[in-house]
Protein backbone atom coordinates (compact mmCIF):
# COMPACT_ATOMS: atom_id res chain seq x y z
CA UNK A 1 0.00 0.00 0.00
CA UNK A 2 1.40 3.42 -0.90
CA UNK A 3 0.95 6.75 0.75
CA UNK A 4 1.75 9.30 -1.89
CA UNK A 5 1.85 13.02 -1.42
CA UNK A 6 1.18 15.37 -4.28
CA UNK A 7 1.81 19.03 -3.72
CA UNK A 8 -1.48 19.89 -5.36
CA UNK A 9 -1.09 23.63 -4.94
CA UNK A 10 1.98 23.46 -7.12
CA UNK A 11 -0.18 21.98 -9.86
CA UNK A 12 -2.98 24.49 -9.41
CA UNK A 13 -1.11 27.72 -8.67
CA UNK A 14 -2.48 30.31 -11.12
CA UNK A 15 -1.80 33.18 -11.51
CA UNK A 16 1.77 33.43 -10.27
CA UNK A 17 2.26 36.97 -8.98
CA UNK A 18 4.90 38.84 -7.02
CA UNK A 19 2.19 40.47 -4.92
CA UNK A 20 1.05 37.07 -3.66
CA UNK A 21 4.05 34.85 -2.99
CA UNK A 22 3.31 31.14 -3.35
CA UNK A 23 4.83 27.81 -4.28
CA UNK A 24 5.68 28.76 -7.84
CA UNK A 25 6.78 32.33 -7.26
CA UNK A 26 9.15 33.82 -4.70
CA UNK A 27 11.11 36.98 -3.99
CA UNK A 28 14.80 37.52 -3.23
CA UNK A 29 15.47 40.90 -1.61
CA UNK A 30 18.93 42.34 -1.15
CA UNK A 31 19.64 43.67 2.35
CA UNK A 32 21.98 46.61 1.86
CA UNK A 33 21.83 48.35 5.25
CA UNK A 34 23.17 46.99 8.52
CA UNK A 35 20.43 47.10 11.14
CA UNK A 36 17.95 45.00 13.03
CA UNK A 37 14.69 44.38 11.22
CA UNK A 38 11.28 43.02 12.14
CA UNK A 39 9.73 40.93 9.39
CA UNK A 40 5.96 40.51 9.34
CA UNK A 41 4.38 37.68 7.37
CA UNK A 42 0.83 38.13 6.12
CA UNK A 43 -1.37 35.64 4.31
CA UNK A 44 -4.24 37.14 2.32
CA UNK A 45 -4.09 40.26 4.45
CA UNK A 46 -3.96 38.51 7.81
CA UNK A 47 -0.82 38.63 9.92
CA UNK A 48 0.38 35.09 10.69
CA UNK A 49 3.83 35.57 12.14
CA UNK A 50 7.01 37.55 12.64
CA UNK A 51 10.74 37.08 12.41
CA UNK A 52 13.78 39.10 13.35
CA UNK A 53 16.56 39.79 10.89
CA UNK A 54 19.98 41.07 11.97
CA UNK A 55 22.04 42.43 9.11
CA UNK A 56 25.66 42.78 10.11
CA UNK A 57 28.57 44.54 8.52
CA UNK A 58 30.66 41.42 8.29
CA UNK A 59 30.06 37.80 7.48
CA UNK A 60 29.97 35.52 4.47
CA UNK A 61 26.33 34.46 4.36
CA UNK A 62 24.91 34.89 0.88
CA UNK A 63 21.27 33.99 1.37
CA UNK A 64 18.71 33.15 4.01
CA UNK A 65 15.65 31.19 2.90
CA UNK A 66 12.41 31.80 4.78
CA UNK A 67 9.57 29.35 4.13
CA UNK A 68 6.46 31.45 4.67
CA UNK A 69 4.26 28.35 4.90
CA UNK A 70 5.98 27.48 8.15
CA UNK A 71 4.49 30.52 9.86
CA UNK A 72 1.03 29.04 10.07
CA UNK A 73 0.38 28.56 13.81
CA UNK A 74 -0.46 24.86 13.64
CA UNK A 75 2.80 23.94 11.99
CA UNK A 76 6.16 23.34 13.68
CA UNK A 77 8.06 26.57 13.94
CA UNK A 78 10.87 25.55 11.65
CA UNK A 79 12.56 27.65 9.04
CA UNK A 80 14.81 26.60 6.22
CA UNK A 81 18.02 28.56 5.95
CA UNK A 82 19.99 27.61 2.91
CA UNK A 83 23.12 27.01 4.87
CA UNK A 84 24.79 27.10 8.21
CA UNK A 85 21.60 26.85 10.26
CA UNK A 86 23.42 27.08 13.55
CA UNK A 87 25.00 30.36 12.55
CA UNK A 88 22.11 31.98 10.79
CA UNK A 89 18.91 31.24 12.54
CA UNK A 90 17.41 30.47 15.88
CA UNK A 91 14.60 28.30 14.63
CA UNK A 92 12.58 28.53 17.81
CA UNK A 93 12.49 32.33 17.94
CA UNK A 94 12.87 32.93 14.20
CA UNK A 95 15.92 35.14 14.44
CA UNK A 96 18.14 35.35 11.40
CA UNK A 97 21.55 36.85 10.96
CA UNK A 98 23.05 37.73 7.62
CA UNK A 99 25.82 39.86 6.19
CA UNK A 100 25.17 43.14 4.42
CA UNK A 101 24.37 42.73 0.71
CA UNK A 102 23.11 39.18 1.27
CA UNK A 103 19.69 38.14 -0.01
CA UNK A 104 16.55 37.37 1.96
CA UNK A 105 14.74 34.68 -0.09
CA UNK A 106 11.01 34.49 0.60
CA UNK A 107 9.05 31.51 -0.68
CA UNK A 108 6.37 28.98 0.25
CA UNK A 109 6.92 25.23 0.11
CA UNK A 110 3.25 24.28 0.42
CA UNK A 111 -0.25 25.62 0.37
CA UNK A 112 -2.05 28.23 -1.73
CA UNK A 113 -0.46 31.52 -2.77
CA UNK A 114 -1.19 34.79 -0.98
CA UNK A 115 1.84 35.69 1.13
CA UNK A 116 3.16 39.19 1.64
CA UNK A 117 6.14 40.21 3.79
CA UNK A 118 6.98 43.63 5.22
CA UNK A 119 10.26 44.66 6.81
CA UNK A 120 10.50 47.35 9.49
CA UNK A 121 13.89 48.68 10.47
CA UNK A 122 14.13 48.82 14.26
CA UNK A 123 15.81 52.15 14.91
CA UNK A 124 16.44 53.21 18.52
CA UNK A 125 13.34 55.40 18.70
CA UNK A 126 11.08 54.16 15.97
CA UNK A 127 10.18 51.48 13.49
CA UNK A 128 10.61 52.44 9.88
CA UNK A 129 8.87 50.50 7.15
CA UNK A 130 11.60 49.84 4.58
CA UNK A 131 10.21 47.08 2.44
CA UNK A 132 6.98 45.51 1.23
CA UNK A 133 7.00 42.58 -1.20
CA UNK A 134 3.98 44.06 -2.97
CA UNK A 135 6.29 46.75 -4.32
CA UNK A 136 9.50 45.23 -5.54
CA UNK A 137 12.64 47.34 -5.40
CA UNK A 138 15.62 47.73 -7.65
CA UNK A 139 18.01 44.76 -7.25
CA UNK A 140 15.17 42.52 -6.10
CA UNK A 141 14.58 39.26 -7.92
CA UNK A 142 11.23 37.70 -8.57
CA UNK A 143 11.55 34.05 -9.60
CA UNK A 144 8.88 31.70 -10.82
CA UNK A 145 8.59 28.09 -11.97
CA UNK A 146 5.69 27.43 -14.28
CA UNK A 147 4.52 23.82 -14.51
CA UNK A 148 1.24 23.84 -16.40
CA UNK A 149 1.70 23.62 -20.15
CA UNK A 150 -0.18 26.27 -22.09
CA UNK A 151 -0.26 29.88 -23.13
CA UNK A 152 0.41 32.66 -20.63
CA UNK A 153 0.30 36.42 -20.43
CA UNK A 154 2.98 38.24 -18.45
CA UNK A 155 2.00 41.66 -17.11
CA UNK A 156 3.86 44.17 -14.98
CA UNK A 157 3.69 47.59 -13.34
CA UNK A 158 4.24 49.44 -16.61
CA UNK A 159 1.11 47.97 -18.19
CA UNK A 160 3.11 46.02 -20.74
CA UNK A 161 1.78 42.60 -21.71
CA UNK A 162 4.05 39.88 -23.05
CA UNK A 163 2.87 36.49 -24.28
CA UNK A 164 4.45 33.30 -23.16
CA UNK A 165 4.25 29.55 -23.63
CA UNK A 166 5.06 26.54 -21.51
CA UNK A 167 5.56 23.51 -23.74
CA UNK A 168 4.10 20.10 -23.06
CA UNK A 169 6.34 17.63 -21.20
CA UNK A 170 7.81 14.79 -23.22
CA UNK A 171 8.30 11.52 -21.35
CA UNK A 172 11.57 9.92 -22.38
CA UNK A 173 13.91 7.24 -21.19
CA UNK A 174 16.15 9.66 -19.36
CA UNK A 175 14.96 12.04 -16.63
CA UNK A 176 13.88 15.38 -18.05
CA UNK A 177 15.99 18.26 -16.81
CA UNK A 178 14.71 21.70 -17.81
CA UNK A 179 17.03 24.21 -19.35
CA UNK A 180 18.69 26.98 -17.40
CA UNK A 181 16.25 29.69 -16.26
CA UNK A 182 15.14 32.39 -18.62
CA UNK A 183 16.51 35.76 -17.52
CA UNK A 184 14.29 38.81 -17.97
CA UNK A 185 15.12 42.35 -16.93
CA UNK A 186 12.17 44.34 -15.58
CA UNK A 187 12.70 48.06 -15.96
CA UNK A 188 10.38 51.03 -15.47
CA UNK A 189 9.29 50.49 -19.07
CA UNK A 190 8.59 46.81 -18.66
CA UNK A 191 10.05 43.48 -19.78
CA UNK A 192 13.24 43.11 -21.75
CA UNK A 193 13.12 40.74 -24.70
CA UNK A 194 10.00 39.48 -26.36
CA UNK A 195 7.83 36.42 -25.97
CA UNK A 196 8.77 34.10 -23.14
CA UNK A 197 8.87 30.46 -24.19
CA UNK A 198 9.64 27.91 -21.52
CA UNK A 199 9.92 24.21 -20.94
CA UNK A 200 7.76 22.91 -18.07
CA UNK A 201 9.49 23.47 -14.72
CA UNK A 202 12.01 25.82 -16.32
CA UNK A 203 12.60 28.83 -14.10
CA UNK A 204 12.14 32.48 -14.98
CA UNK A 205 14.28 35.04 -13.16
CA UNK A 206 13.03 38.62 -13.29
CA UNK A 207 15.84 41.04 -12.39
CA UNK A 208 14.01 44.05 -11.00
CA UNK A 209 15.55 47.30 -12.16
CA UNK A 210 12.90 49.74 -11.01
CA UNK A 211 11.14 50.56 -7.77
CA UNK A 212 7.49 49.78 -7.04
CA UNK A 213 7.54 46.95 -9.53
CA UNK A 214 5.33 43.91 -9.77
CA UNK A 215 5.06 40.90 -12.09
CA UNK A 216 2.22 38.53 -12.86
CA UNK A 217 1.94 35.44 -15.07
CA UNK A 218 -1.50 34.08 -15.89
CA UNK A 219 -2.46 30.92 -17.76
CA UNK A 220 -4.83 31.89 -20.53
CA UNK A 221 -5.12 28.64 -22.52
CA UNK A 222 -4.05 25.31 -21.00
CA UNK A 223 -2.42 22.64 -23.14
CA UNK A 224 -3.63 19.25 -22.02
CA UNK A 225 -1.44 17.37 -24.39
CA UNK A 226 -1.90 15.21 -27.45
CA UNK A 227 -5.28 13.68 -27.93
CA UNK A 228 -7.09 16.46 -26.23
CA UNK A 229 -9.03 17.57 -29.28
CA UNK A 230 -12.39 17.22 -27.63
CA UNK A 231 -14.91 14.41 -28.16
CA UNK A 232 -14.57 12.07 -31.13
CA UNK A 233 -17.65 12.25 -33.35
CA UNK A 234 -19.06 9.29 -35.25
CA UNK A 235 -21.20 10.15 -38.22
CA UNK A 236 -23.82 7.67 -39.25
CA UNK A 237 -22.83 6.56 -42.77
CA UNK A 238 -26.45 5.80 -43.55
CA UNK A 239 -27.23 9.46 -43.18
CA UNK A 240 -24.40 10.63 -45.44
Amino acid at each position, binding site marked *: *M*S*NSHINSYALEHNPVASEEIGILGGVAHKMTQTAEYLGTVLFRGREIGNFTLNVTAEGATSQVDVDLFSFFPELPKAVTPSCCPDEQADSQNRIFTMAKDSYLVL*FASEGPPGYRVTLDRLDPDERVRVYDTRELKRDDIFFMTLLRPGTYTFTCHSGQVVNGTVTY*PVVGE*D*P*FVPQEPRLVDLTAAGFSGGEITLQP*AQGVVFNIQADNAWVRAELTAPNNGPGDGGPVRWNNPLNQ
Partner: protein
Amino acid sequence: MAHFTVAASENTFRKLFTVVRDNVSASTSGSKSFGPFKASWAFGFKLAGGTVDLQSNNSVLISELDIIYTPASLTLSVDIPQICVGGFCLIPKPWPWKGCLISAPKICIFSANPDITLPINLSGLIQSEISGAFRVKTKYHQSNSRKAGMNYLDAEDKKDPNQWQFYLDPIWLDIDIIDIADTIGNILDMFINNAIDALLGWLPGWAKNLIKAIMGSATKLIRKILDIGDDIDEWLSNLLGVSIGLFDFVVTIVADYFANKFPILKVEDPYPILPYSGSLIPVKIPLLNVGVNITNTEMVLTADVGATL
Protein backbone atom coordinates in the same frame (compact mmCIF):
# COMPACT_ATOMS: atom_id res chain seq x y z
CA MET B 1 31.04 -63.14 7.97
CA ALA B 2 27.49 -61.73 8.56
CA HIS B 3 24.67 -64.08 9.35
CA PHE B 4 22.32 -62.34 6.90
CA THR B 5 22.90 -60.61 3.57
CA VAL B 6 20.11 -58.92 1.65
CA ALA B 7 20.50 -56.97 -1.57
CA ALA B 8 18.24 -54.44 -3.25
CA SER B 9 18.78 -53.74 -6.91
CA GLU B 10 19.39 -50.27 -8.27
CA ASN B 11 15.86 -50.29 -9.63
CA THR B 12 14.44 -51.16 -6.25
CA PHE B 13 16.58 -48.45 -4.69
CA ARG B 14 15.12 -45.94 -7.12
CA LYS B 15 11.60 -46.88 -6.06
CA LEU B 16 12.53 -46.53 -2.44
CA PHE B 17 14.03 -43.11 -3.17
CA THR B 18 10.89 -41.93 -4.91
CA VAL B 19 8.92 -42.34 -1.70
CA VAL B 20 11.46 -40.25 0.22
CA ARG B 21 11.60 -37.62 -2.48
CA ASP B 22 7.86 -37.19 -2.61
CA ASN B 23 7.71 -36.56 1.13
CA VAL B 24 10.04 -33.59 1.01
CA SER B 25 8.29 -30.24 1.24
CA ALA B 26 8.80 -27.07 3.24
CA SER B 27 8.03 -23.38 3.18
CA THR B 28 9.64 -20.18 4.34
CA SER B 29 8.74 -16.54 4.50
CA GLY B 30 10.38 -13.34 5.62
CA SER B 31 11.41 -9.85 4.69
CA LYS B 32 14.64 -7.94 4.44
CA SER B 33 15.64 -4.37 3.75
CA PHE B 34 18.25 -3.58 1.12
CA GLY B 35 18.41 0.17 1.59
CA PRO B 36 16.37 1.75 -1.19
CA PHE B 37 14.15 -1.29 -1.46
CA LYS B 38 12.73 -4.00 0.71
CA ALA B 39 11.93 -7.58 -0.26
CA SER B 40 9.28 -9.79 1.31
CA TRP B 41 8.83 -13.37 0.27
CA ALA B 42 6.86 -16.55 0.75
CA PHE B 43 8.33 -19.65 -0.84
CA GLY B 44 7.43 -23.32 -0.60
CA PHE B 45 8.98 -26.17 -2.49
CA LYS B 46 8.73 -29.84 -3.27
CA LEU B 47 10.88 -32.20 -5.33
CA ALA B 48 10.28 -34.12 -8.51
CA GLY B 49 12.21 -36.09 -11.10
CA GLY B 50 15.88 -36.78 -10.63
CA THR B 51 18.05 -39.74 -11.52
CA VAL B 52 19.57 -42.18 -9.04
CA ASP B 53 22.86 -43.95 -9.68
CA LEU B 54 24.52 -46.33 -7.27
CA GLN B 55 28.27 -45.80 -7.26
CA SER B 56 31.00 -48.33 -6.72
CA ASN B 57 32.60 -46.13 -4.08
CA ASN B 58 29.81 -46.89 -1.62
CA SER B 59 27.79 -43.80 -2.44
CA VAL B 60 24.59 -42.84 -4.19
CA LEU B 61 24.55 -40.10 -6.79
CA ILE B 62 21.25 -38.27 -7.18
CA SER B 63 21.20 -35.86 -10.08
CA GLU B 64 18.96 -33.10 -11.35
CA LEU B 65 16.18 -33.28 -8.83
CA ASP B 66 13.69 -30.64 -9.92
CA ILE B 67 12.75 -28.12 -7.28
CA ILE B 68 9.18 -27.01 -7.75
CA TYR B 69 8.52 -23.72 -6.04
CA THR B 70 4.97 -23.35 -4.86
CA PRO B 71 4.05 -20.81 -3.63
CA ALA B 72 6.72 -18.48 -4.97
CA SER B 73 5.82 -14.95 -4.15
CA LEU B 74 8.25 -12.08 -4.00
CA THR B 75 7.17 -8.55 -3.11
CA LEU B 76 9.49 -5.63 -3.68
CA SER B 77 8.80 -2.30 -1.98
CA VAL B 78 10.75 0.47 -3.65
CA ASP B 79 11.51 4.02 -2.50
CA ILE B 80 11.13 6.48 -5.34
CA PRO B 81 13.10 9.68 -5.03
CA GLN B 82 11.08 12.82 -4.48
CA ILE B 83 10.20 14.79 -7.59
CA CYS B 84 11.26 18.37 -7.05
CA VAL B 85 11.54 21.46 -9.22
CA GLY B 86 13.27 24.78 -8.79
CA GLY B 87 16.68 25.05 -7.21
CA PHE B 88 17.99 27.01 -10.19
CA CYS B 89 20.50 29.80 -9.96
CA LEU B 90 19.23 33.34 -9.39
CA ILE B 91 22.58 35.11 -9.26
CA PRO B 92 25.82 33.50 -10.41
CA LYS B 93 29.04 34.14 -8.57
CA PRO B 94 31.00 37.02 -10.02
CA TRP B 95 34.02 36.35 -12.18
CA PRO B 96 36.54 34.77 -11.62
CA TRP B 97 34.52 32.50 -9.37
CA LYS B 98 32.18 29.87 -10.78
CA GLY B 99 28.95 28.50 -9.46
CA CYS B 100 25.86 30.04 -7.98
CA LEU B 101 25.71 32.79 -5.39
CA ILE B 102 21.97 32.87 -4.80
CA SER B 103 19.66 29.94 -5.62
CA ALA B 104 15.93 29.51 -5.76
CA PRO B 105 14.64 26.99 -3.22
CA LYS B 106 13.62 23.53 -4.42
CA ILE B 107 9.94 22.75 -4.25
CA CYS B 108 8.95 19.11 -4.08
CA ILE B 109 5.78 18.32 -5.94
CA PHE B 110 5.59 14.57 -5.47
CA SER B 111 6.73 12.09 -2.89
CA ALA B 112 5.51 8.73 -1.68
CA ASN B 113 6.09 6.62 1.38
CA PRO B 114 6.40 3.65 1.44
CA ASP B 115 6.36 4.24 -2.31
CA ILE B 116 5.52 1.49 -4.76
CA THR B 117 4.99 -2.18 -4.14
CA LEU B 118 5.67 -4.80 -6.79
CA PRO B 119 4.11 -8.19 -6.05
CA ILE B 120 5.69 -10.79 -8.31
CA ASN B 121 4.47 -14.37 -8.57
CA LEU B 122 7.44 -16.48 -9.57
CA SER B 123 5.57 -19.80 -9.70
CA GLY B 124 6.49 -21.49 -12.92
CA LEU B 125 8.97 -18.77 -13.81
CA ILE B 126 12.06 -20.09 -12.09
CA GLN B 127 13.44 -23.57 -12.35
CA SER B 128 16.19 -24.95 -10.25
CA GLU B 129 17.69 -28.32 -9.60
CA ILE B 130 19.51 -30.03 -6.82
CA SER B 131 22.07 -32.79 -7.12
CA GLY B 132 24.11 -34.57 -4.54
CA ALA B 133 26.12 -37.55 -3.46
CA PHE B 134 25.09 -39.54 -0.40
CA ARG B 135 26.25 -42.33 1.83
CA VAL B 136 23.69 -44.63 3.37
CA LYS B 137 23.92 -44.43 7.14
CA THR B 138 22.34 -46.67 9.67
CA LYS B 139 20.47 -45.58 12.77
CA TYR B 140 18.73 -47.56 15.44
CA HIS B 141 15.31 -46.19 16.21
CA GLN B 142 13.94 -46.85 19.68
CA SER B 143 10.18 -46.90 19.76
CA ASN B 144 8.80 -43.72 21.28
CA SER B 145 5.90 -45.47 22.98
CA ARG B 146 7.94 -48.26 24.52
CA LYS B 147 7.77 -48.02 28.27
CA ALA B 148 9.82 -49.77 30.91
CA GLY B 149 8.67 -53.36 31.28
CA MET B 150 7.33 -53.63 27.72
CA ASN B 151 8.76 -56.39 25.56
CA TYR B 152 8.99 -56.85 21.82
CA LEU B 153 5.59 -58.55 21.66
CA ASP B 154 3.95 -55.59 23.39
CA ALA B 155 5.63 -53.36 20.84
CA GLU B 156 4.31 -55.51 18.00
CA ASP B 157 0.81 -55.36 19.47
CA LYS B 158 1.08 -51.58 19.51
CA LYS B 159 2.51 -51.64 15.97
CA ASP B 160 5.46 -49.57 17.19
CA PRO B 161 8.51 -51.78 17.10
CA ASN B 162 12.13 -50.69 17.25
CA GLN B 163 13.72 -50.31 13.86
CA TRP B 164 16.97 -50.25 12.02
CA GLN B 165 16.64 -47.25 9.75
CA PHE B 166 18.71 -46.36 6.69
CA TYR B 167 19.15 -42.73 5.73
CA LEU B 168 20.77 -40.91 2.83
CA ASP B 169 23.48 -38.83 4.44
CA PRO B 170 24.68 -36.11 2.03
CA ILE B 171 28.33 -35.87 1.13
CA TRP B 172 27.70 -32.80 -1.02
CA LEU B 173 24.73 -30.99 -2.48
CA ASP B 174 24.64 -28.59 -5.40
CA ILE B 175 21.74 -26.32 -6.19
CA ASP B 176 21.46 -24.14 -9.23
CA ILE B 177 18.96 -22.03 -11.05
CA ILE B 178 18.87 -23.48 -14.50
CA ASP B 179 16.24 -21.33 -16.07
CA ILE B 180 14.42 -18.11 -15.49
CA ALA B 181 11.60 -17.44 -17.85
CA ASP B 182 12.45 -14.86 -20.47
CA THR B 183 9.22 -13.12 -19.59
CA ILE B 184 10.34 -12.18 -16.10
CA GLY B 185 11.85 -8.92 -17.30
CA ASN B 186 8.64 -8.00 -19.06
CA ILE B 187 6.60 -9.03 -16.06
CA LEU B 188 8.68 -6.82 -13.78
CA ASP B 189 8.39 -3.88 -16.18
CA MET B 190 4.67 -4.36 -16.38
CA PHE B 191 4.35 -4.33 -12.60
CA ILE B 192 6.49 -1.20 -12.40
CA ASN B 193 4.42 0.69 -14.95
CA ASN B 194 1.18 -0.43 -13.34
CA ALA B 195 2.41 0.65 -9.92
CA ILE B 196 3.48 4.07 -11.18
CA ASP B 197 0.20 4.54 -13.02
CA ALA B 198 -1.70 3.61 -9.88
CA LEU B 199 0.36 6.08 -7.87
CA LEU B 200 -0.25 8.91 -10.32
CA GLY B 201 -3.51 7.74 -11.76
CA TRP B 202 -5.73 10.38 -10.26
CA LEU B 203 -3.65 13.28 -11.55
CA PRO B 204 -4.59 15.15 -14.72
CA GLY B 205 -2.73 13.91 -17.77
CA TRP B 206 -0.35 16.85 -18.08
CA ALA B 207 0.70 16.56 -14.41
CA LYS B 208 1.19 12.82 -14.74
CA ASN B 209 3.33 13.35 -17.80
CA LEU B 210 5.33 16.08 -16.11
CA ILE B 211 6.14 13.83 -13.17
CA LYS B 212 6.91 10.93 -15.47
CA ALA B 213 9.11 13.15 -17.61
CA ILE B 214 11.10 14.34 -14.59
CA MET B 215 11.31 10.77 -13.32
CA GLY B 216 12.43 9.46 -16.69
CA SER B 217 11.70 5.90 -17.62
CA ALA B 218 10.03 4.39 -14.56
CA THR B 219 11.31 0.94 -15.40
CA LYS B 220 14.81 2.29 -15.83
CA LEU B 221 14.59 4.18 -12.54
CA ILE B 222 13.18 1.25 -10.58
CA ARG B 223 15.63 -1.19 -12.14
CA LYS B 224 18.43 1.16 -11.11
CA ILE B 225 17.09 1.35 -7.55
CA LEU B 226 16.86 -2.44 -7.49
CA ASP B 227 20.38 -2.60 -8.95
CA ILE B 228 19.27 -4.98 -11.69
CA GLY B 229 21.83 -4.06 -14.33
CA ASP B 230 21.83 -5.72 -17.71
CA ASP B 231 21.13 -9.27 -16.59
CA ILE B 232 17.89 -9.70 -14.72
CA ASP B 233 18.48 -13.43 -14.45
CA GLU B 234 21.69 -12.89 -12.59
CA TRP B 235 20.07 -10.28 -10.37
CA LEU B 236 17.16 -12.53 -9.49
CA SER B 237 19.40 -15.50 -8.90
CA ASN B 238 21.57 -13.40 -6.60
CA LEU B 239 18.57 -11.94 -4.79
CA LEU B 240 16.98 -15.31 -4.19
CA GLY B 241 20.11 -17.27 -3.59
CA VAL B 242 22.42 -14.92 -1.73
CA SER B 243 20.38 -12.06 -0.35
CA ILE B 244 17.26 -13.96 0.67
CA GLY B 245 19.04 -17.26 1.20
CA LEU B 246 16.40 -19.32 -0.57
CA PHE B 247 18.86 -21.86 -1.91
CA ASP B 248 20.51 -22.33 1.46
CA PHE B 249 17.07 -22.95 2.87
CA VAL B 250 16.27 -25.58 0.23
CA VAL B 251 19.61 -27.33 0.60
CA THR B 252 19.34 -27.39 4.39
CA ILE B 253 15.83 -28.80 4.30
CA VAL B 254 16.71 -31.43 1.72
CA ALA B 255 19.82 -32.47 3.60
CA ASP B 256 17.91 -32.72 6.87
CA TYR B 257 15.02 -34.63 5.37
CA PHE B 258 17.24 -37.18 3.70
CA ALA B 259 19.68 -37.51 6.59
CA ASN B 260 17.32 -37.43 9.56
CA LYS B 261 13.65 -37.36 8.76
CA PHE B 262 12.77 -39.90 6.08
CA PRO B 263 14.67 -43.15 6.00
CA ILE B 264 14.94 -44.80 2.65
CA LEU B 265 14.43 -48.15 4.29
CA LYS B 266 13.25 -49.41 7.66
CA VAL B 267 13.79 -52.87 9.08
CA GLU B 268 11.93 -54.01 12.15
CA ASP B 269 13.93 -55.26 15.10
CA PRO B 270 13.59 -58.00 16.11
CA TYR B 271 12.95 -59.03 12.54
CA PRO B 272 9.71 -61.01 11.99
CA ILE B 273 10.15 -64.50 10.60
CA LEU B 274 6.72 -66.00 11.33
CA PRO B 275 3.54 -64.13 12.42
CA TYR B 276 1.13 -65.01 15.21
CA SER B 277 -0.49 -68.37 14.50
CA GLY B 278 -3.29 -69.47 16.74
CA SER B 279 -1.86 -69.69 20.17
CA LEU B 280 1.68 -69.49 18.87
CA ILE B 281 3.59 -66.24 19.35
CA PRO B 282 5.32 -64.69 16.33
CA VAL B 283 8.84 -65.79 15.58
CA LYS B 284 11.35 -62.98 15.46
CA ILE B 285 15.11 -62.74 15.43
CA PRO B 286 17.08 -59.83 16.88
CA LEU B 287 19.48 -58.11 14.53
CA LEU B 288 22.90 -56.85 15.44
CA ASN B 289 25.77 -55.16 13.63
CA VAL B 290 23.59 -54.05 10.79
CA GLY B 291 25.63 -52.64 7.96
CA VAL B 292 25.09 -51.37 4.44
CA ASN B 293 27.29 -51.20 1.40
CA ILE B 294 26.62 -49.71 -2.00
CA THR B 295 27.97 -51.13 -5.21
CA ASN B 296 27.29 -49.88 -8.69
CA THR B 297 24.44 -52.35 -9.07
CA GLU B 298 22.86 -52.90 -5.68
CA MET B 299 22.56 -51.92 -2.04
CA VAL B 300 23.66 -54.74 0.21
CA LEU B 301 22.49 -55.03 3.82
CA THR B 302 24.25 -57.31 6.27
CA ALA B 303 23.38 -58.25 9.84
CA ASP B 304 24.15 -60.71 12.61
CA VAL B 305 21.63 -62.55 14.75
CA GLY B 306 21.55 -61.24 18.30
CA ALA B 307 21.52 -63.36 21.40
CA THR B 308 18.49 -61.86 23.14
CA LEU B 309 15.14 -60.41 22.12
